[in-house]
């Protein structure tokens, strides 16, 4: 605890200290003899008190990355390598007893499906008190007080009554609030939100996102926001990692990413997005589909769909910082680039 205390205090100065550093994380699933590399060398940092968005389409490995952080990968999946450092402490291969102390206490997680993420046979109160009981040395009375307090905090009306209710008695939005209350009951340093609003209606989504943002400021925690929705990213994140086929292809602060994207995939995503706030001409989709795991090309995984792909894309590019501050995994910005010189990947309209 002393060590942690020291490190927390360092955060007072301006340097963006990272709460979590993920380096070259690799998580695979084994089906028979074949290996599916769901996460294949992912690296990123979560600055203290900030929100990192991880955005990608289905199959990009963003959810597996999240589950890997808390070591919640189930068989036949397995973390094969890399490092996950939480405040300097290595979590890959950490003892299970240590991981249990971190889960729900220092790093919490909320999930996509509020309808199924709560245990149907226990009351809201039971499930909320449980996490407090595990991590705080409170008596039963204090546990209950704290649980009610948390329900109030997430804006659930008449919390005393809700404590005795079962999940089926609550709407989807209310259940997600309960999930947030559970996740935040022990004041975590880091909240991992895995598509927390995907299953919810848009007016409820707005409530949940706002709630997370407000509570983040109150508690001073960092957030990893995993989503497929670029709107959610723009709305809630400070930094963004764009994932494609198990890798981060671009990393930048949110303004740079939306105004000056560098990776052809990021650009493709932005051009495909129908917007409600502006009038658009034709959408420009990305051609083709994400290849099946066994059809993945060598080298850049995006090459088969990339309008700029060249010979060198048969080799895997590194994730490298380029002049304007984006980290990009693309040959176009490398001196070895053999395609059209000075190609404009994105035009700011």
């Amino acid at each position: 605890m002393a060590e942690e205390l020291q490190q927390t205090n360092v955060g007072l100065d301006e340097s963006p200290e990272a709460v979590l550093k993920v380096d070259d994380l690799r998580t695979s699933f084994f089906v028979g003899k074949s290996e599916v590399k769901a996460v294949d060398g992912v690296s990123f940092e979560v600055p203290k008190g900030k929100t990192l968005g991880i955005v990608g389409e289905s199959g990009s490995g963003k959810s597996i990355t999240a589950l890997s952080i808390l070591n919640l990968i189930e068989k036949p999946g397995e973390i094969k390598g890399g490092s996950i450092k939480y405040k300097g402490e290595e979590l890959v291969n950490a003892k299970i007893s240590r991981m249990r102390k971190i889960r729900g206490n220092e790093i919490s997680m909320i999930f996509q499906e509020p309808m199924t993420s709560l245990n149907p046979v226990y009351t809201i109160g039971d499930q909320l008190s449980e996490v407090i009981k595990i991590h705080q040395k409170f008596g039963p009375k204090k546990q209950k007080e704290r649980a009610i307090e948390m329900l109030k905090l997430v804006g659930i009306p008449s919390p005393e009554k809700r404590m005795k209710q079962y999940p089926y008695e609550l709407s989807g939005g209310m259940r997600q609030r309960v999930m947030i209350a559970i996740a935040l009951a022990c004041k975590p340093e880091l909240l991992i939100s895995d598509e927390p609003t995907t299953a919810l209606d848009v007016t409820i989504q707005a409530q949940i996102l706002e709630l997370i943002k407000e509570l983040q400021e109150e508690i001073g925690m960092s957030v990893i926001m995993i989503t497929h929705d670029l709107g959610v990213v723009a709305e809630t994140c400070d930094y963004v990692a764009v994932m494609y086929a198990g890798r981060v292809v671009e990393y930048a602060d949110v303004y740079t990413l939306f105004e000056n994207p560098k990776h052809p995939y990021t650009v493709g995503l932005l051009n495909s997005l129908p917007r409600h706030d502006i009038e658009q001409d034709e959408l420009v989709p990305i051609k083709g589909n994400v290849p099946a795991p066994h059809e993945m090309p060598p080298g850049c995984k995006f090459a088969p769909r990339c309008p700029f792909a060249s010979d060198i894309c048969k080799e895997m590019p590194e994730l490298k910082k380029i002049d304007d501050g984006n980290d990009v995994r693309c040959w176009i910005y490398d001196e070895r680039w053999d395609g059209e010189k000075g190609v404009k990947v994105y035009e700011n309209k």
Partner: protein
Amino acid sequence: MKTSEDILREEENEEILRVEGLKQYFPIKGGFFGRTVNHVKAVDDITFTVNKGETVSIVGESGCGKSTTGRSILRLEEPTEGKVFFEGKDILAQSKKEMRDMRDDLQIIFQDPYASLNPRMTVKATLMEAMEITGAVPKREREQRVIDLLETVGLQRHQMHRYPHEFSGGQRQRIGIARALSVNPKLIICDEAVSALDVSIQAQVLNLLKKLQREMGLTYLFIAHDLGVVRHISDRIIVMYLGKIVEYGDTKSIFENPQHPYTKALLSAIPVADPRNKSDRIFLRGDIPSPIDPPTGCRFHTRCPFATDLCKTDTPVLENKDPESNAKHEVACHYALDIQSGKHEANYEMRDVRKNIDDESLEALEGQEEERY
């Protein structure tokens, strides 16, 4: 941004679909003898028209009745009340056989193409079957038609011998579109047709739908919850809430000048993909009420920041409230104009997402925080 085509379309302005007073109540069975104890009023007295060659979207959140509307029009569920005219003929008055003939003209594409395709039938068999049932295409031409259709929707000829599971989600949706097209329909109902697709694939399918509309003069009734998609594809928009239409108008007018408090809240709730342009949120209180016993008067009054006693008793009529505007725009709200002009003010804080939070619990929380460190 009007193309000559658009102008032409407006001049034609020929009505293809007209829905009048459509109601769809689903009985709830209960008690010992399975009596009908109540009704889910999924769609409750809605009226609208769709013109030839245009795209009309129905938007709203879950439980608003948008999907039920689409299904009722096709008589996939037999409507409780109302009339649906397709090219002047009342669909609901047709016999089973006449209805079968009409199905050539009316097709539907669903959200989950996988669930709506028979897993044991090849793409070719699926398309052939559709043509066979309706008899829209002579037997000799069917094989060639399958090949044409696949090319139209951007699949390759050799893929017709494959089974649905061999395709990706986007490709399956293309098959769903090909099946709908196979009988030369005039109107296609797209029920959340692109909702399950990743954004890069969704754009492909949206572009395809637009292209087909241009080339074949199709009419779409587009049912969706994603307002970005809706803005992109629609000419006109119907906003539904709890089985009723609350607002109806031209796309640009709805998005740039929403008049109903619900539409405003809905639009303000959508995250904008532009970090420098964060929208000014209106948070509605509470959840959507159950359609079993919907609120009286204006159904939105339980959550509306502007509701008065009048809204609890009088159901507002859907009508044009702004005579100065020449856009087609109707709204069902007693106070639409007064809210617009600022004369009628909100009666609860719309910007606070945790209305019932009090200072006490916040303080207690801060106390906890100190305890920990």
